[in-house]
């Protein structure tokens, strides 16, 4: 009888704790981080444009599904003001996107992460920006990553992703760092030692897809600071023999701007599966750089 009473007491106790656990799970479900941002946006719109406009704001998880790129970007769950006029000066995450670039790269056709990096699947800030996430290789290319790797112009890192589609452009509007790097590649005649896109010499490594090399491929024994592919390239362009004493590559005495630009360029050289409609048509003039081999198309 004692055992029976003890069992009944245990059933009530475990049942009560299970109820509490269920309650916590529901509470967690109804209070996600993005709801705070959505209500903040509603407040902002009510303040600036009135309650009627605020009613037009969608609620719940929002996403851009780009079938051609096989990408889903849920960034717009919090970044609700990307296409709103009059929010150019709003604080993030509500600020409107510069409209010029959106005209050529509409949100519906490109989404966000193809350019900005980050984890489009995610619905919380930490996972979405992925700057500290252990298991996402493409973090949001912005200030935080730039500062961690001590680059000269952190915000310019975004241009790495411009060059995924614009690899064969001689010059890309708005991608000044990438353009500068392409200019250096021509001036310094890198193809005298390196093969890129099937052209050039094999005195140095083939660089055609150097951007997709695993971070563990590099030797960090002589690289100061954080161990990362970008850190290795930055140190290597600064002075190749500092990083690899056996290297045949001469020291070009590149400054921080050149180092960052060239690092960004080589990190953009990756194998990508893009629909042909996403690759800009070749321009007649000026002539493409040596790396732009037609065979690569």
């Amino acid at each position, binding site marked *: 009888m004692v*055992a*029976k009473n003890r*069992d*009944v007491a*245990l*059933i009530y106790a*475990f*049942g009560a*704790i*299970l109820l509490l*656990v269920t309650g*916590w*799970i529901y509470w967690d*479900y109804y209070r996600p981080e993005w709801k705070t941002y959505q209500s903040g946006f509603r407040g902002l719109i009510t303040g600036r444009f009135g309650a009627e406009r605020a009613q037009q704001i969608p609620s719940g*998880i929002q*996403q851009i599904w780009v079938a051609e790129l*096989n990408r*889903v970007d*849920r960034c717009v769950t919090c970044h609700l003001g990307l296409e709103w006029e009059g929010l150019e000066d709003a604080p993030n995450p509500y600020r409107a996107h510069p409209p010029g670039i959106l005209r050529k790269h509409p949100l519906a056709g490109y989404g966000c992460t193809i350019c900005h990096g980050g984890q489009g*699947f*995610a*619905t*919380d800030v930490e*996972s979405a920006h992925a700057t500290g996430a252990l*298991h*996402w*290789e*493409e*973090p949001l*290319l912005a200030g935080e*990553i730039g500062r*961690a*790797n001590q680059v000269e112009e952190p915000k310019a890192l975004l241009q790495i992703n411009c060059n995924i589609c614009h690899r064969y452009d001689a010059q890309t509007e708005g991608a000044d760092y990438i353009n500068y790097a392409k200019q250096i590649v021509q001036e310094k005649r890198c193809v005298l030692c390196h093969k890129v896109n099937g052209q050039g010499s094999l005195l140095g490594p083939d660089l055609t897809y150097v951007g997709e090399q*695993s*971070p*563990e491929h*590099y030797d*960090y024994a002589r690289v100061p600071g954080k*161990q*990362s*592919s*970008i850190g*290795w390239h930055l140190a290597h362009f600064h002075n190749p023999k500092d990083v690899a004493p056996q290297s045949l590559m001469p020291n070009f005495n590149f400054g921080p701007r050149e180092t960052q630009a060239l690092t960004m360029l080589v990190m953009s050289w990756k194998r990508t599966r893009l629909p042909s409609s996403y690759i800009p048509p070749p321009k007649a003039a000026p002539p493409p750089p040596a790396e732009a081999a037609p065979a690569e198309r």
Partner: protein
Amino acid sequence: MAAEKTIWKKLIWTWKPESEFEAGDSIVRNLLLHWFPSKITFRSLSYRYSFWLGTASAILFGILTVTGVVLMFLYVPSVERAYASIKDIEFAVAFGWFLRGLHRIGAHLMVAVVFLHAVRVFLTGGYKNGVAANQNRPLNWIIGVVLLLSTLLLSFTGYLLPWDQLAFWAITVGTNIALAAPVVGEQTRFLLLGGNTIAQGALIRFYVLHCVFLPMLVLLLFAWHMWRIRKDGGLACADQLALDQKQEKAPPIKSKTYSLLGIAGTRTVHVEAALVDEDRHATPASPSLTLRLLVVILATVLLASLMTIVVEAPLEEPANPAVTSNPAKAPWYFLWLQELVADTTVRVGGLTLNGALVGGIIVPGILVGLLLVWPYLDRSSVRSAGIWFGSDRWRQNIVFLIIVLAILILTIVGTYMRGPYWGLYWPWETWPDLPRKF
């Protein structure tokens, strides 16, 4: 006042059988409970004898079935969509993280609990026949060993499904161990993977094995396992009561006939069981067994739920055959094998002794073989059946415990002490940060 009492009674829904017949009838008439005995010994009910590990593993299988069926509506078993569908479950599906987490924790717990259940049965000599006629506990032990192996396979096949780096490389390690088997190794791996590489063929095979074939097998074996327990007169500890009674020279009790299916075609189906003085040692299963069962169900669900909340379910980068994860590890329950493989790979000059054969095939093969035949080799007395650390089984119990301890130590070393490049790190040493892209 009377009306209030009635409402209160209705609310708390109590039911008290007025006779033992009514109590037994409630078990036999109930679809969910009919496979229980109508009376059960106090010893079988106790936590200290069985720790209710077998029941807990069945409950975990239930949790896995329910969560698994819901996950089947959400998961897409294709190389292109599998990873993305898991990400969707994690981030966009209502309660998806909990569903996936509970399924994952439930699977890990089930492996652990089924293993502990087997350890318990061995240490108590639960596989030994007692005094009742027509017992065949050794057969039930063999069914149990197959259930343990099926549980491992169920968990292993589920491991690949997220199609992330963790999954891909764990299955690579696991199937490469199979490759080391002599003569049939290559064919086994080919059959398992549906090819020579881990690709769509492997994913769909693992998916069907995981969702259809293995659960059906476990369900059938589970039914057989339970049926045999009833046929064998319940847990082995009940036999000790009968033996005690014989020693006590108590006045003979009425021979009992247990009716399993009631009267069918004017003939009674008999199940002979240990003849225990039920008035002294047993209690009606309703409500004693049903209450205890509810305690174990709630405790198991609660433990699994709390662990799901506390332990985050990892999802690494999408599977990439070109980049080996560092270190590449098999699932934790096979890490003792991977550790054995690593430790038995010996290079002498230009010669390499293949560790996968010794650690991955021979050692586990011998262990499973021994497990299967052990009840027939165990010649200890009937007094050691259903009793913890039976006195004339001490040698085999010690050897068994040493093997269990070795497996646990190797598992712990493999899980917590093998860091990048399979380097050995003490628990107080931090693993070096692996380089990242940015």
